[in-house]
């Protein structure tokens, strides 16, 4: 077997997968729910809903850290996914390799701010928090104020080698983590890497912020029906939480230690958009360039892609733009390639989405089942796609394109394959 790809770089194998979403913990629960078209979206119970125009989300409510704040929950989501992936890879709890963590920018939360404010004696408003910090007898709140904390907790627990990287490319972050890990292996800096995307930041403030940008669905009456990518009456994404981890490894290293090859990361492509902070360039050129770059990086032609795991957020703008970009790259053939959106069931897991959807993409190839786009009852006539409507489909899939697009002009695409070259 060839250990290198068409550019002479080490082929990058996936040897471990882990996942947590609102559908459950672990691959088997998630896969069973996803392929039966089950939705994880529900009415929010974590915080009061007064004054909010959106009251639904795909929060992960069944973990110990679910009510402990965004930092604690993001860590636990990453931790559970990492443990599952490392175990599957047969690495006995220690990765001994670099970490690339996609996580939300987590600030000190409101509970901590209120507690600090109450402990302050002098000053008003935010200055009183500083007064409380000076008087504090311990530094218990300090870790939550540092952006490197979650990665450090993971690094110490799993034997990460070197300085871990925490990154954000907004809603493309999870895909970027996989890209950076893949590139590090290709450059020969490491034989193996751990890529994680985790996001437990569905707080009231996050919901309000996205609402102010008119990005969220307000179809609160039937939560499980709100996320409806590619439908005519889609009105925004559904905020959600999740975590996913992938153990990536040079094919050579994986085979020589007898690890099972779960899939291959064949190509990564990206292009930044310079048009607007939240809207993409009207001609779709950055997304088109990112899709094309990923396929080119994989050493493939567009007609070799068997399935598209869409970004498919269910916002009017994304789904339209994504359809246009795919049409530009695939031409007429796009109407016959299955294109489905996991977000119809799990919502938009933000910083985790690219990693969550990469895990589902690998499972799609391994299991020979394409998860559906649910809630496809009222197709958008302007979007002619085979969205695998409402019901999962048996199919032999040997390669997947997974798209991730984010605010700030972030466009990152991954091409994954079932078998090495």
């Amino acid at each position, binding site marked *: 077997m060839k250990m290198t790809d068409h550019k002479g770089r080490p082929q990058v194998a996936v040897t471990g997968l882990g996942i947590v979403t609102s559908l459950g913990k672990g691959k088997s629960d998630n896969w069973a729910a996803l392929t039966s078209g089950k939705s994880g979206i529900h009415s929010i119970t974590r*915080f*009061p809903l*007064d*004054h*909010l125009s959106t009251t639904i989300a795909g929060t992960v409510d069944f973990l110990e850290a679910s009510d402990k704040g965004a930092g604690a929950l993001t860590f636990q989501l990453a931790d559970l996914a990492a443990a599952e992936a490392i175990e599957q890879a047969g690495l006995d709890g220690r990765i001994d390799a670099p970490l690339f963590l996609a996580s939300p*920018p987590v*600030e*000190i939360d*409101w509970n901590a*701010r*209120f507690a600090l404010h*109450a402990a302050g004696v002098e000053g*008003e*408003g*935010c*200055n*009183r*928090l*500083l007064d409380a*910090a*000076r008087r504090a007898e311990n*530094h218990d709140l*300090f870790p939550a*104020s*540092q*952006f*490197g904390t979650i*990665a450090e907790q993971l690094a110490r627990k799993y034997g990460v080698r*070197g*300085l*871990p*990287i*925490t*990154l*954000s*490319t*907004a809603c493309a972050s999870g895909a970027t983590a996989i890209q*950076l890990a893949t*590139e590090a292996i290709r*450059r020969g*800096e490491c034989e193996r890497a751990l890529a994680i995307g985790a996001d437990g930041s569905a707080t*009231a*403030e996050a919901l*309000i*912020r996205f*609402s*102010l*940008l008119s990005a969220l669905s307000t179809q609160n009456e039937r939560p499980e029906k709100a996320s409806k990518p590619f439908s005519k009456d889609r009105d925004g994404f559904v905020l959600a939480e999740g975590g996913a981890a992938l153990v990536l490894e040079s094919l050579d290293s994986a085979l020589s230690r007898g690890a099972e090859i779960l899939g291959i990361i064949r190509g990564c492509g*990206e*292009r*930044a*958009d*310079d048009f*607007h*902070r939240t809207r993409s360039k009207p001609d779709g050129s*950055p997304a088109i360039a990112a899709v094309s770059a990923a396929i080119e990086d994989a050493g493939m032609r567009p007609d070799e892609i068997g399935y598209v795991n869409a970004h498919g957020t269910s916002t009017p703008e994304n789904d339209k733009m994504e359809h246009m970009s795919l049409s530009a790259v695939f031409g007429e053939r796009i109407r016959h390639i299955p294109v489905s959106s996991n977000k119809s069931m799990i919502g938009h897991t933000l910083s985790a989405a690219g990693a969550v959807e990469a895990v589902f993409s690998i499972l799609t190839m391994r299991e020979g089942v394409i998860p559906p786009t649910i809630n496809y009852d009222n197709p958008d006539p302007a979007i002619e796609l085979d969205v695998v409507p409402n019901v999962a489909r048996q199919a032999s899939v040997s390669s997947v394109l997974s798209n991730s697009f984010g*605010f*700030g*002009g*972030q466009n990152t695409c991954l091409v994954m394959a079932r078998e090495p070259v």
Partner: protein
Amino acid sequence: MSERDVLITGLGLVTCFGEGPEAHWSAITSGEAEPRLDSTRFAPYTIHPLPEIDWGRQIPKRGDQRQMETWQRLGTYAAGMALDDAGLKGDEEACARMDMIVSAAGGERDVEVDGAILEAARTREDRGVLVNEKLTTELRPTLFLAQLSNLLAGNISIVHKVTGSSHTFMGEEGSSIAAIQTAAARIRSGQSSHVLVGASFQTEHPDMLLGYDLGGFLEREGWRPLWSRDQGKGGGVVTGSAGVFLVLESRARAEARGQKAYAAIRNVVSGYADRPLGGLTAEITRMLADLELPSGPLLAISGASGAHEATTAERDALSAGGDIAVRGIAALFGHVKEAQFPLAVALAALCIANRSAVPPVETGVETLFDGVPERVLATTIGYHRAEGMALLEPA
């Protein structure tokens, strides 16, 4: 020499000493550099504040300026200066193929809105409802975008058209150590031909001070010399605001377009000591060994923060590491967090380019360096975690 050597071909610098490489070089080599301080605005803390900046010089559209808070403006401004300095500003073809790695934390929260919520919470039990009520009515949508970590990079794409790739690393000093290390590795492997890398930090905001003092890291009784801060009562760190961006470019690309370089980055190393276990000095010593330092006297531009444990460990490791003349730049610029390592590397590059050392910042503690520095070390030992060093040489 290799076609893929990593050259520094552009510098964008804004600190309390002003803007641009020349202004900084003359300030730090005049021998009379005095720290520029503000001890009243955030008393009892002292900060190194930003100078007056005419934002329009790098961010021409007022609409763009309005979409950003100071942190993003500062970074976008410094990035534009770096592109200008490298002769790449407005070169659409070059910028469209340019990679970008930005180090960032969160942006500035709205102090008025947060303050109003905190004050109202004194008399209300229903705090969850209070947060919803205030945020839904008083938060400005643009401010959310001004707070997103990756939107500094997003603004650089919009204003300067850098669109080859865009990555944002998070996590205090470690984020920019990883950013420069990754950018250099991309060039060395042939993956990138030119990369914009850097950060900005705006300390003039209570949350930015809170991020240090929740850990007890800040000085509270005015400024004192960097290397003796462990003798004071405070935590040792005096912060500053800065925007620092570098254009890194392969030798092949720089030479093909006849672009002069300040210096070459010979090597970048990073570390991640398990500090509670006491391994910091050993980790710094290991990094020095990995850099394969030249024999003889060496000039080091140190990013030491003043934080007691980290600064002591660095001083100990450097003094045991050979004949190293250290310059503690935080004494002049303050600690600029994500921008700390880019600043140390930028100043080291200026020493190489000018074939001259920076005089001691703290006479008596920092030793003289005679002659031309052929190699210059840049260090950043994080105040709490993460360690990095780069060794620079003439291009």
